[in-house]
């Protein structure tokens, strides 16, 4: 019985941690849908955003003010990216755009470190990485409060974004651009504004993920690599699918925890770092379009 409970605990912790992968992967999907490019700068954006947030806190700003200022900063980053990087490259090939996002990543990492220094920061969200009492009482499960918070925050953000895309004018514009940027442009949907929306959303997602991860492991450069775990998530979920990003994140989160706990000891631990990539390779071999890789609808 305790064996089973323990397994459930591991899976739940994995799923909750996975919501953050889902969220970051969602940032990638948005940009991928709007500009058909894999945004290699997403990891750097996570690092940049949360480092800036901690920096503002250190300057003496309160938590909410720091948060709002950082969100505005990320919108500004999105704006500059659109103006200085994407717009000039608008009609270039997708490879060129890919290189540009890699370059943007280096710029953001450099800027963040120049502005805020290189040492690891602590980020205290006031939520401990301890089991929640009542969950122990009711279910007999040890689940970390930080994991639960991360899960709830990610879920709220994902649902919020989904509603935004389904029911607002800009959301409709985004979905149109994702389907056919040329046709969207021909009926007067300004690609510029849509890009700004997408990059701002990706920036906010990056900040939130950075805060959750930073609270656990410290705000440090390693967050960039953590964010790149969105890559195996996307391989599993399919690059252009929002539900795919969400489910892919949960699968990666749960699988890596289970593997870590049950197989980790045989590999000398720390297989969380590479297990997702192994899983992704299996998918590439057997289901390269991903679980939810959208079928391309052909015109009759």
């Amino acid at each position, binding site marked *: 019985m305790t064996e089973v409970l323990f397994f459930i605990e591991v899976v739940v912790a994995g799923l909750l941690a996975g919501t953050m992968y889902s969220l970051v992967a969602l940032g990638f999907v948005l940009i991928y849908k709007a500009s058909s490019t894999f945004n290699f700068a997403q990891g750097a954006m996570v690092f940049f955003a949360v480092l800036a947030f901690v920096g503002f806190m250190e300057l003496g700003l309160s938590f909410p003010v720091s948060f709002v200022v950082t969100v505005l900063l990320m919108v500004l980053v999105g704006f500059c990216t659109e103006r200085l990087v994407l717009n000039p490259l*608008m*009609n270039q090939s997708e490879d060129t755009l890919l290189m540009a996002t890699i370059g943007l990543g280096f710029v953001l990492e450099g800027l963040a470190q120049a502005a805020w220094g290189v040492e690891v920061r602590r980020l205290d969200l006031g939520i401990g990485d301890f089991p929640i009492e009542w969950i122990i009482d009711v279910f007999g499960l040890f689940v970390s409060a930080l994991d639960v918070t991360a899960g709830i925050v990610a879920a709220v953000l994902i649902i919020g974004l989904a509603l935004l895309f389904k029911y607002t*004018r800009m959301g*409709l*514009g985004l*979905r*149109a651009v*994702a*389907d*056919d940027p*040329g*046709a*969207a*442009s*021909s*009926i*007067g*949907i*300004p690609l510029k504004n849509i890009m700004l929306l997408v990059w701002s959303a990706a920036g906010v997602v990056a900040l939130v993920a950075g805060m959750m991860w930073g609270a656990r492991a410290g705000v440090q450069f390693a967050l960039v690599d953590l964010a790149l775990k969105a890559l195996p998530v996307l391989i599993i979920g399919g690059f252009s699918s929002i539900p795919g990003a969400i489910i892919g994140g949960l699968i990666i989160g749960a699988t890596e925890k289970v593997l870590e706990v049950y197989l980790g000891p045989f590999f000398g631990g720390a297989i969380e770092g590479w297990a997702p990539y192994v899983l992704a390779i299996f998918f590439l071999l057997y289901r390269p379009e991903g679980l939810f890789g*959208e079928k391309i*609808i*052909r*015109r*009759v």
Partner: protein
Amino acid sequence: MTGNSDNILEINSIEVMYDSVISALHDVSLNVPKGKIVALLGGNGAGKSTTLKSISTMLAAERGKVTKGSIVYDGTEVKNQNPYEMVTLGMVQVLEGRRCFGHLTVEENIIAGAYSRKLSKSQIKDELEKIYGYFNRLRDRRKSQAGFTSGGEQQMIAVARAMMAKPKMLLLDEPSMGLAPQLVAEIFNIVKELNEKEGVSILLAEQNTNVALRNADYGYIIETGHVMLHGSADELLNDEKVKELYLGISKEGRKNFRDVLREEETKKLA
């Protein structure tokens, strides 16, 4: 030819290059009088789409550029505008191949056409009703995913979507492409109705010369980036060369205007 305010569009000897080296149009001039339907006719690769994209400024997205001549739309020179600005000025292009948003519903596709107008929910509803009045068939399909509708319905979606932007002028690129004659007729009827009731001026690129001229007021025939002939729709329909080359009554060996004209030249000289 220039400065006539009865024309909503005036193109004066434009030359267009892609990638700064591939020359697609050499010398194209044409006028569209206000409230009229003008057909731009020619075979594959003649330069019809390039002409339309020069007007809507969609050309830039394909690394194309107008290198000579001028385009004047509704009194404004078309130079550095982008497609969004052109749409707000009332110029909307329906691209070749319909290009519906496949994952959006039919109704979402049409609503997307009003994006630049920033309408309220109730205004959108009114506009939709008006559009469905012309495109009855789409009303029944409003909740379907556009990617799963038929070719004819997709062409209607594309035109309906463009009409939601409230254009003064529509550029239609080969609306008949790949459609059965009956559907072609249905679509041209709607286009004519829109022209008459909404007063929208239309420049229509077509390979289907017959249908296009039967619905247009005036026509231009282009080949390899040159205007070869123009005249009223009736004149062109009764022109011997047009009949032979474009209406399917072809003598062997003479494939285009250039050949016909050259042949006539040699005859004259002999």
